[in-house]
């Protein structure tokens, strides 16, 4: 038996050695792939209308409409959102500054028109869900590649696109995901699908990109869906009326703008 097992291990080793040759790739590592996704050109600023549809396990739906502006300021990304529907939260606005530095928490403010005040929200956890959706702030693109170790598992075709499948394991102990697997489209550097496993290693949810569009050479995800399998809850995000590099002024991303509205 012992002899046999050794033999088996040798075969596995041999196969592992062969993988880089078989895969015929440009010898990219998992980390490089994820970095390419993270640093992919998405313009200097963006504006558009975001529709967020939340669907619970019984099929009840809630729809929120948001006008969203965001802009890169070096290592800081600033984003402001104005709710336009439903009516009772119209003009509520939300400002978020996020930092490339993993050690630094996001700064967040909210303006409630019925209260007439801007309030700062401080939160000690990055694993907060974004407005009751199935996305956390990290899922929305905030997570820096250095926070995980990445490994290219294989390449495969998904929905007609050639994809790298990369496994990412968090460096931080007790992070809300024990593992994620990302299907990254070759040469486009868009994550087409991502599977999330919770801190106990159980399968949690899947993000699927349903549609992406080319805006003057910049690819923008316009329709995605996150399905939390444990709760059977779904969030659909649709992004439209998109304008890239629109020259949004930096005064847009201030408390004053929040209360002044659009």
């Amino acid at each position, binding site marked *: 038996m012992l002899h046999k097992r050794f033999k088996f291990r040798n075969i596995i080793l041999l196969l592992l050695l062969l993988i880089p040759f078989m895969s015929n790739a440009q010898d990219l590592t998992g980390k490089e792939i994820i970095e390419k996704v993270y640093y992919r050109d998405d313009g200097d600023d963006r504006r558009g209308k975001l529709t967020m549809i*939340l669907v*619970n396990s*019984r099929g*009840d*739906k*809630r729809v929120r409409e948001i006008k969203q502006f965001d802009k890169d300021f070096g290592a800081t990304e600033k984003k402001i959102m104005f*709710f336009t529907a*439903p009516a*009772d*939260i119209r003009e*509520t606005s*939300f400002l978020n500054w996020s930092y490339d530095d993993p050690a630094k928490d996001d700064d967040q*403010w*909210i303006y*409630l*028109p*019925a*209260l007439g*005040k801007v*309030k*700062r*929200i*401080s*939160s*000690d*956890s990055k694993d*907060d*869900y*974004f*407005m*009751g959706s199935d996305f956390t702030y990290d899922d929305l693109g905030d997570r820096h590649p250095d926070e995980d170790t990445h490994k290219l598992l294989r390449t495969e075709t998904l929905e007609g696109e050639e994809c790298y499948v990369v496994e990412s394991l968090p460096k931080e102990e*007790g992070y809300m995901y024990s593992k994620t697997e990302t299907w990254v489209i070759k040469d486009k550097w868009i994550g087409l699908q991502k599977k999330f496993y*919770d801190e*106990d290693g159980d399968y949690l949810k899947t993000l699927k990109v349903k549609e992406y569009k080319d805006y003057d050479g910049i690819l923008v995800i316009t329709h995605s869906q996150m399905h939390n399998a*444990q*709760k059977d809850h779904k969030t659909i995000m649709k992004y439209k009326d998109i304008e890239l590099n629109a020259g949004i002024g930096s005064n847009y991303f201030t408390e004053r703008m929040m209360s002044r509205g659009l």
Partner: protein
Amino acid sequence: MKTFINFITKYPWPILLGILAVTAFLFIEMSANSRMETDLDEYMPQDHPAFVYSDSAEAIFNIKDGIIIAIENKDGIYNPQTLGKIKTLTKDLGQMKQIEKGDVTSLYTADNIIGTETGLDVTSFYEEVPESSDKLESIRQSVRTNEMVYERIVSEDETVSVVIAEINDDVFSMEFYHEILDLASSYEDEDHKLYVAGTPIVEGTMAYLGPKDMKKMVPIVILVIIIVLYVTLRNIKTTILTLSVVILSVIWAFGLMAWLGISIYAVTTMMPVMLIAIGVADGIHLFNHMHLYLQEHPEASRKDAISDMVRNMWKPVAMTSVTTSVGFVSLLASEVYPIKYFGLFTAFGVMAAMFFSLVFIPVGLMIFNKPKQVKAKRESEKHHPLAHKISKWVLQHKILVLVISVLTIGIGIYGTQKVWINSSFLDKFEDDSDIVQTDNFINKKFGGTTTLNVILSADRKGAFKDPEILKLMSKMQKDVVGSVKEAGNSFSLADYLERMNKVMHADKEEYNRIPDSHNLNAQYLLLYEMSGDPDNLWEVVNYDYNKANLNIQIKEDDSKSLKAVLDEVKSYRGEFSKLNVDINFAGSGYTALVFTDLILEGQIKSLVITFIIIIVLLSLMFRQVSIGFIGAVPISITAVLSFGVMGLLNIPLSTTTALLASIAIGIGIDYAVHFIERYRINHKQHTDSLHIATATMNHSGRAILFNAVVVIAGFLVLLFSVFPPNRALGALVSFNMFTAFVGTITIMLVLLHWKKKFK
């Protein structure tokens, strides 16, 4: 009948082997396929509107019953050890396969939303277990000022904190319960004590303990019955044969159930008890008859004695079995399936007992020979002096008997009005049992272990963001908790909004109220979704904000307390309907209450049906309508007195005790039928009423007395049960037997005496 008797006496062995073969088959079925059903939801009639409503509300708001584990540290919980235990216990529970991770709530998982001068701080109370006394003190302060945690997750005196694991209805098992207990006790040390409580624990333990106790008690009951049977029948052969009839009928009833794939429910475990009580009667009457026959004809052959017995007794045995079965079949009127099954299969068992009495006993006697006549015939033995004395006394005091009977009925009716229904599961346990003690402990420290879900539904979307509605909810909550002493705490969407309003105003207490604007409420809720765990929100309101779930925690689980809370909530119906909001109820506490009412309603329906059918049957059997009514007198007195005594002694009607009326009738009618049949026969042969009475008393009266003594002795054994409902059952069945016996030989005898003509 003659060919039947000939057949039996001719082929005793084949018949015996046939019966044994069928019994063996059913016994194998019973041991191989019996399935115990402990999930109480299986008892509920799923299509009843109250249950349908509750089910849908439970699905909307994810209402589940929670297992509550309390950690007590007498020196206070704010130290690294206790907080560490809370954290690991929370994680351990989430790891159990029966519990979903998101369904565990504790100080470790709770959100701490704090207002500051500039804004809002959303944190957990702790992630890493804090070591420094500063940090511990700051946790203590945040808990104290957080109404959503203080006195809900941490007790007022800060010595106890609870970890709540909500579970689905179908996962509870005794193994799971023991796993939880083991887990809890593994956290105990000299500073920490753990308590496990909650509805699933109580229900699960009850569903397990009741039948287990029955299993232990039934053999003792049988043993006592064997002894008493032997003492009364004074013959080992007849004792064995009588007992065999009972055991065979129990095997056939349970075997048939297993064969048809019908589960055993907690109520089904009362079947052996019923069949034992009813089944021994046939044997006693048969052997009583044979005994008297042999006294008169000491030289009679085995075949003659058997023929005489079957010829004279088949009619009353068949009549009593049919009438008793009718009583049980009428339980089909119940909406509760386990009770339907109980009625149906007990009826089958009774008919099986009749079959065995008329076939197995004669066959057994053919094979093992007739019982030896122990005592030589003496003239004084022919009519027992006691039979004479009783008959004489009754016939001399007819009016007195009548007056006492009427008084008894009067007392019974008076007591019946005091009967109260109890759906409590906890009341079924001993007051000093662990489960009750734990419950009391948690109820003392927290809002209550029983939850009533008040479901509010509005006519339009977004209604539960309206200040008027939310303010009324808040007012009702304060009123219920303030005015009903059993209501310990309440929780609803209003609490979230009050808290958010306070937090957004730098934690100033005067803002701990519902904001005046619909939009502000909407915006607070959006903010809560952004900062807290939105899943918590969907336990109190639905997506469209037109349905809300208002929880009221109650410290007792008995019907009186639940009804007190219900009544207070219902008094708000008018005010809510002005705002176009309806009030309904859901949750296990409420369905248990409805369920108990249903059982009782079914019981009363079946009682009425039984009385009517029995009167009709007796009228047909004896071909006289008046006899139908006379025969119903002892069982009426028994039933009324049974309920009356329960009312007077403050024994609540529950799912167990409610079935007693069926036993009372089932057994009581047997006494009446045997007595009437014998009285009628004697009436044909004699004219002197005292002689008729004495002869009847000597024959049927004697057998009824034996029957009553045997069954009463057997049931008194249940008084030693560890399970209070089984004790009540034992005491009340014994009492009912006694009433039925006395009623039959007194007031019914008087009525028979007054009735001059017999067909």
